């Protein structure tokens, strides 16, 4: 059935416009101003406040992780030690320092920023709004998830102050079983963060199952909800395995139980199986919610119905299921059996298909759309470009013969930065801009937004394209020094990282400035039709003055831009 036919069918079942008028001026206090004490925030059960607290936390950890990234890149500007001599005297100690820097960067970014990022910081805020609900299914559990995140962050900060961690964020044995650094606190942090993630996922699955409004069937949900649902399933099924893995690693270190460390009779490749069984779905947990955001960004800012809704929805589910079948592609050179290598390689090829389907659908959505090149849309378009590169380079790595050469080189580093950062983080920032007016009630400066987006885009490519090249020429990853022939590439890469950092700092500047002196945001600045745009910016405590009926989130026909209020008004009411 084609899209117009499906629309005709749904037309007869549910109204395509909301049946209530959103008040132009807020009638009462918003969720931000209704109470102002410290405890009203610290003990809040309001998903919006929890989302805001997560956002602040995640952005702080992003800053810390980013600083370590700049340390790493600065150190690599030259094959000679540049800044590590400030902290350590012998070459060995300097190399150790470098190991601690990249480990900290990786661990903080993976566990504290990207995995929680979109679901916890943005998803918490937006999910109930998209459903026309008053809150998530388990608000107290939601607050518990937040405090678990804070505790996990506390453990990692403790690790920072007690000598750091040098095992790599992947904690491979046998080194992680014998390293003298603060491994056990870091593992405890991972365990606790795992439960934060599990409870968030659990909350979201139940909310989406049980709290959809009448008329919003599964195939009338905004696609961000499909993405969140698929992510939550992965969170619930995969995260316990990293939990038991870190517990067993702690026992290996303390009691020598003999599971992962060959000195005690264990198998280090078994550790990798345990670790990657979670960590591969984890990378999809990192990318699927951003893909959900991109669906929203592209559709809303092109003012055009999303193309291939059903395919995008099912592709999220397909990614979730396939993600559990490919973990061995991180282990091709580890000594894994040839049979398993072949099986994992084959399935990895197929896991790229659902993602490719999404890319085609987004481009088709943009075709003949009335595109507004807002900052959020620019980030969405960046996503499409950067994810294509990231995804394709992943396919190269899936080929066994090629991976033999590229494993543990900078090619891999560039690939995962393209997908995790160039796609995941970019879409997170895009979503942040898209929902910033709704969350804060303020508009930011589009002018500076576009400039910052350009800086980030150019800086990002300048940082990581040289890394693809030097990786294929043999530059290994996690090395504190290198052969002279790579120096040019490293210098370009470091320069790019500074450009990118400038873009991020500029973003922080104009966003904070908008909080202070930004224009007041209307209810629907971008012209979206999902339910969050049918309440004031920012929303009241219980989200809606009058809960609208479920609408078709991708029908933009009845929205008309009013240049006076800079708001998209719904023309057909009732």
């Amino acid at each position, binding site marked *: 059935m084609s899209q117009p036919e499906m629309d005709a069918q749904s037309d007869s079942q549910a109204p395509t416009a909301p049946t209530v008028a959103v008040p132009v001026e807020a009638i009462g206090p918003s969720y931000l101003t209704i109470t102002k004490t410290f405890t009203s925030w610290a003990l809040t059960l309001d998903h919006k406040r929890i989302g805001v607290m997560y956002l602040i936390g995640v952005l702080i950890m992003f800053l810390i992780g980013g600083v370590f990234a700049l340390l790493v890149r600065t150190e690599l500007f030259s094959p000679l030690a540049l800044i590590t001599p400030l902290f350590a005297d012998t070459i060995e100690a300097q190399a150790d320092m470098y190991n601690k820097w990249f480990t900290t960067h990786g661990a903080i970014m993976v566990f504290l920023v990207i995995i929680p990022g979109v679901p916890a910081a943005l998803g918490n805020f937006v999910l109930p709004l998209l459903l026309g609900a008053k809150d998530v299914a388990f608000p107290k559990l939601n607050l518990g998830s937040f405090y678990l995140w804070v505790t996990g962050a506390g453990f990692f900060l403790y690790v920072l102050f007690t000598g750091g961690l040098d095992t790599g964020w992947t904690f491979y044995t046998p080194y992680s079983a014998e390293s003298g650094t603060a491994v056990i606190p870091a593992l405890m942090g991972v365990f606790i963060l795992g439960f934060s993630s599990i409870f968030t996922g659990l909350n979201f699955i139940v909310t989406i*199952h049980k709290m959809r409004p009448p008329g919003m069937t599964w195939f009338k949900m905004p696609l961000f909800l499909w993405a969140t649902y698929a992510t939550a399933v992965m969170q619930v*099924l995969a995260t316990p*395995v990293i939990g038991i893995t870190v517990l067993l690693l702690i026992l290996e270190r303390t009691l020598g139980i003999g599971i992962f460390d060959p000195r005690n009779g264990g*198998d280090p*490749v*078994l550790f990798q*199986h345990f670790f990657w*069984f979670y960590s591969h779905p984890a990378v999809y947990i990192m990318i699927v919610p951003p893909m959900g955001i991109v669906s929203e960004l592209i559709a809303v800012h092109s003012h055009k119905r999303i193309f291939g809704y059903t395919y995008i929805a099912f592709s999220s589910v397909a990614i979730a299921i396939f993600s*559990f*079948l490919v*973990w*061995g592609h991180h282990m091709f050179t580890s000594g*894994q*059996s*040839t*049979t*398993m290598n072949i*099986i994992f390689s084959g399935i990895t090829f197929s896991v790229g298909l659902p993602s490719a389907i999404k890319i085609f659908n987004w481009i088709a959505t943009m075709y003949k759309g009335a595109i507004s090149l807002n900052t959020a849309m620019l980030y969405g378009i960046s996503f499409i470009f950067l994810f294509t590169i990231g995804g394709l380079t992943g396919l190269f790595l899936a080929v066994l013969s090629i991976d033999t050469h590229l494993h543990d080189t900078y090619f891999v580093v560039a690939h995962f930065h393209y997908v995790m950062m160039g796609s995941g983080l970019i879409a997170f920032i895009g979503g942040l801009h898209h929902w910033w007016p709704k969350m804060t009630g303020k508009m930011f400066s589009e002018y500076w937004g576009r400039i910052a987006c350009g800086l980030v885009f150019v800086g990002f490519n300048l940082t990581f394209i040289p890394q693809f090249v030097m990786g294929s020429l043999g530059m290994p990853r996690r090395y504190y020094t290198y052969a002279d022939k790579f120096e040019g590439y490293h210098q370009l890469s470091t320069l790019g990282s500074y450009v990118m950092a400038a873009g991020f700092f500029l973003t922080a500047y104009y966003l904070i400035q908008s909080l202070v002196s930004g224009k007041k945001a209307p209810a629907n600045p971008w012209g979206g039709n999902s339910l969050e745009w049918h309440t004031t910016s920012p929303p009241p405590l219980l989200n809606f003055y009058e809960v609208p009926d479920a609408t078709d989130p991708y029908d933009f026909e009845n929205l008309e831009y009013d240049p006076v209020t800079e708001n998209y008004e719904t023309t057909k009411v009732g």
Partner: protein
Amino acid sequence: MESILNNVDLLILFAAFMSLIATGVVFTKMRNQPSPHPEFGHMTGPTLLLVILTLLLFLTWLTVAVSYVDLGGLNVVVAMGVATIKGSLVALYFMHLRWDRPYNAIILVGSLLFLGIFLGFALLDTGEYNPSLIDDPFLKINAEQFGNEQG
């Protein structure tokens, strides 16, 4: 104490029979009473619960008794099979899955499925563990095809 424990399978059988008797008693008592319905959800009758316990205890006796007999590789199969039957009884009746929405059962089965994938792939890998790569069959094929390039 030791003497009781030494015949633990008889102890289990005894418990099973006691449970059977209790089932009969409860059944006769409850036969003429109307079964109450809560506002939502489902209420399991005590008779059914006792029947399930009786079955579980009999199955426990069975698996312990079989463990004394050496069936070779079949021992694991029987033990796991009986455990699965017992587990299904607990899940369906004690945990209410029989009367619940199917999605709850899908969650349980799904988690077991993914656990199976984890165990299965890990076993497939360690099952091909070679103490030395010199015996690796794939390396042999390569050496035949390309001659002794790398050895």
